[in-house]
């Protein structure tokens, strides 16, 4: 999932301070799972904003809605008949949702309610960590299912650096060395010979380095 974290309330207040009719839009997908922008977080933000404006003596209309997704036309269309009642939207979806909303409703200011962080997993409730950077050429088959692009601080492809100590990364002793994980896993899979093979220099053109990316599937296009 895409992992996001809630923006500081002060930052959101600054975004919406000048407006009188605010629509807060949550997303029922990734940001709900990581507890940053689902229905519950929309309600919490709405309360905080109402309290802020009440303390200021300013009357502000604040409404809440949570869409199934904000990265698909059909769900964003659900706002079509009501969006004109507001003068600003705060989207608590990831950056994808915020942008898609802004593209769809060109005359409506759309503010982000969360900071989008990475693609990751729920390690335990309240702890999410990165697993994928979307580099466009997955090499997990060669690294025992552990990604050196997203999990090695230096994105190394041919084994650990000299900073790896007792299986931990030099950037933080709480971070496990990705290559330690890869080697352990290769041992378990009895595939250590794969680890010894040199990996060709990576082609980054499928990553963001090649510019904004697009996937086109003519076979599923209507």
């Amino acid at each position, binding site marked *: 999932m895409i992992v996001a974290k809630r923006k500081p309330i002060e930052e959101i207040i600054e975004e919406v301070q000048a407006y009188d009719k605010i629509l807060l839009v949550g997303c029922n997908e990734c940001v709900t799972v990581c507890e940053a922008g689902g229905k519950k977080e929309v309600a919490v933000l709405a309360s905080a904003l109402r309290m802020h404006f009440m303390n200021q003596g300013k009357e502000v209309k604040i409404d809440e809605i949570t869409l199934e997704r904000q990265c698909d036309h059909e769900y964003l269309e659900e706002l079509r008949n009501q969006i004109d009642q507001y003068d600003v939207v705060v989207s608590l979806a990831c950056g994808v949702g915020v942008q898609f909303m802004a593209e769809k409703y060109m005359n409506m200011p759309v503010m982000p309610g969360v900071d989008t962080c990475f693609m990751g997993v729920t390690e335990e409730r309240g702890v999410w960590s990165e697993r994928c950077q979307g580099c466009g050429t997955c090499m997990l088959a060669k690294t025992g299912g552990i990604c050196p692009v997203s999990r090695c601080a230096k994105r190394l492809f041919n084994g650990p650096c000299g900073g790896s100590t007792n299986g931990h990364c030099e950037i933080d002793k709480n971070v496990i060395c990705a290559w330690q994980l890869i080697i352990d896993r290769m041992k378990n899979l009895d595939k250590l010979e794969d680890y010894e093979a040199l990996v060709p*220099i*990576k*082609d*980054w*053109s499928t*990553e963001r*380095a*090649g*510019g904004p990316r697009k996937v086109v599937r003519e076979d599923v296009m209507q």
Partner: protein
Amino acid sequence: MPLKEKIAAGKFIILGEFEPPKGADFDSFITDANLVKGRVEALVVPEMANAVLKASSLGGCACLEREGIPSVFQVCCRDRNRLALQADILSAAALGVQNIMAVNGVETRFGDHPQTRTVNDLDLIELIETVQTLSQGKDLAGVELKGTPGFSVGSTIDAGAAGNLLDIEMERLEKMLENGVDYVITNPVFDLRRFEQFVKRVDTSKIAVLPTVLLLKSAGMARYIDRNMRGITIPPDTIRRIQKAPDKVQECIRIAAETIKQVKKMGLAGVLISTVGWESKLPSVLNEAQL
């Protein structure tokens, strides 16, 4: 003497563009550069123009400075992060380089290493700010430097921009001025009448404008540029002149020299003469332009 002092003294600045080699053999680079020693104010050394791998601008500048030829060091956002850029800028100062030119860099997908990861840690305005910060004796982390570099700072501007794009260029120019840019070099100029419209928008008393005069090599090259390069227009008469000329190389030299003379007549600060691989012909262009 840094370029800004020469510009302030009212001298018509002649810059040449000298690409470092793709390889470790700098012999012809140095030989060709010596052919114009004393005839140009400085030689601009591009940092992997068009994202094609070459030896670095810093390496080229070091070779030129060793020969007593002033250089312009190109720093490029595309390939280096803020650590590497600052390190190179400090090293350039230590090597005697007095002029620096900040550029964005062409996207790597257009070069010969499209598999690379572009960096763009700093954008162009931030890079110019960085040069200024270093020139004030501190690095971007706010730590005091041992020895402060001093540069004449330049950048680029799109003289072919029109309409909204020109407005954006003018805003960018303002930001450059705020950050201490002394001169800007434009993309190649062939259509002087169109170029005059651009110059009218710039307060040349605040910033020196140096158009690039590109030495064409053939009518085919001229046609290609005219059709495919955004913001560059080559008048049909110019292309016809090359087509009809018995000595096409000489005609291209003549066209470049005429453009330089016209730029001088416009009262601009100077020119950058770009010879793209024909560096050995730069003396002929200077002769023809009576410089």
